[in-house]
């Protein structure tokens, strides 16, 4: 097996670098799909590559070779990978598989628990108002999902802004955004290099819901204002923000920039600029990376199969 088997292991790093620019500049719906599919495909390709390397190593061990009726000597002679590489690949694959299983199990259980809670929430309507001075609003996935809004949040917003909030949360539920974030996080668990992609997906689903609300109300600036107002009300009433505003000066973050900002200011800034369009270049770039990963993985698998054929004892 040659270079082809290592490329799927390196491509996730490239994708990680591209994740933030894609999330910032693409139409959020397209970006969500692109990043999620990329994360899952790259996690699969890199796991396959690790599997092939480990398998090639296993085949060199005489007892395993005897069991599979192939020649350990031929494998040792013709396979360019060293035993150490195979061992490391095996260890990484084991770690990736157990992390993925762990994440899948936890996420599935949490989603199920959320769905159960959604049915237990009072009333039968989609909206649940909770008596709480802290400004808070969130969607609970379920069948059907529910939207919980605190009285503190309702008081902080006017009529139109409440409609925007509901349109945003409804977009999360109808678009099943929790499945995208879950899939991306599963991929990131299997391959930690893909974590920036999972973080980008968490952001693009928010942007997707923002743009959905903007389309519903017809005014992107109004959505920007609503998001900003809600965030300020939330930090004012909830005491959940990490540091009081007065501490800003002490920390010397005088020149807060969008590059290092949290998701809320980035969402607001995105809504204040013209809507992102579908661009051909990032699409083509992503397609090329995925295609390369797939081709390399297939090529490496083919290579290994050839090797096994050669080493088969007749």
């Amino acid at each position, binding site marked *: 097996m040659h270079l082809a088997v290592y490329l799927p292991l390196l491509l996730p790093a490239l994708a990680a670098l591209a994740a933030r620019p894609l999330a910032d500049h693409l139409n959020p719906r397209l970006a969500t799909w692109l990043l999620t599919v990329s994360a899952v495909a790259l996690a699969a390709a890199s796991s396959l590559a690790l599997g092939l390397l480990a398998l090639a190593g296993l085949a060199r061990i005489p007892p395993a070779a005897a069991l599979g009726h192939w020649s350990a000597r031929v494998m040792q002679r013709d396979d360019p990978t060293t035993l150490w590489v195979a061992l490391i690949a095996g260890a990484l694959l084991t770690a990736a598989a157990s992390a993925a299983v762990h994440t899948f199990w936890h996420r599935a259980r949490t989603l199920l628990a959320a769905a159960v809670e959604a049915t237990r929430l009072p009333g039968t309507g989609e909206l649940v108002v909770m*008596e709480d001075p802290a400004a808070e609003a969130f969607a609970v996935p379920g069948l059907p999902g529910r939207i919980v809004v605190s009285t503190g949040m309702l008081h902080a917003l006017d009529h139109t802004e409440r409609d925007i909030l509901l349109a945003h949360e409804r977009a999360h539920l109808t678009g099943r955004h929790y499945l995208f974030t879950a899939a991306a996080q599963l991929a990131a668990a299997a391959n930690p290099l893909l974590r920036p992609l999972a973080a980008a997906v968490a952001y693009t689903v928010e942007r997707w819901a923002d743009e959905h609300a903007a389309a519903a109300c017809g005014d992107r600036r109004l959505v920007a204002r609503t998001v900003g107002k809600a965030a300020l009300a939330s930090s004012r009433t909830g005491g959940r923000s990490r540091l009081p505003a007065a501490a800003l000066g002490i920390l010397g973050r005088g020149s807060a920039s969008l590059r290092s*900002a949290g998701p809320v200011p980035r969402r607001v800034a995105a809504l204040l600029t013209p809507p992102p369009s579908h661009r051909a270049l990032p699409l083509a770039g992503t397609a090329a990376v995925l295609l390369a990963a797939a081709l390399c993985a297939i090529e490496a698998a083919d290579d290994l199969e050839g090797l096994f054929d050669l080493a088969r004892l007749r």
Partner: protein
Amino acid sequence: MSANAHSAAGSIGGRRAGGALEAEVLAVLRKAAPHALTPGEVRTALGGSLSYSTVVTTLSRLHDKNVLARTPRGRAFAYTPAADEPGLAARKMRQVLENEPDREAVLARFVDDLATGDEQLLRRLLDADLDLGQ
């Protein structure tokens, strides 16, 4: 309704039964909801014949029983009727949201917590649209 209760209680003259006063106070606050009222406002709504400390005592007693919720306003507290059944269920939901990081991952919050510097940035982005005094 509260006016009727008031005149009825008032006609007894002098001290009212604690339970009657509590019911009256609750009625005033239910009518005013979702706006919270300070003891002074409750006293005015009840006709102003009661002493301020009586109203405060009644309100704190109701708050101790979890019938009322209160938020600080100025030097006093402002009171609203506490969560009924629906409110309690939703409040439990919020506790869950705050206590379990994994749970938070599946609940789509409208706005994330602001990080250091975010508030400043938000105000700069939206300065014309936001009430800076808030």
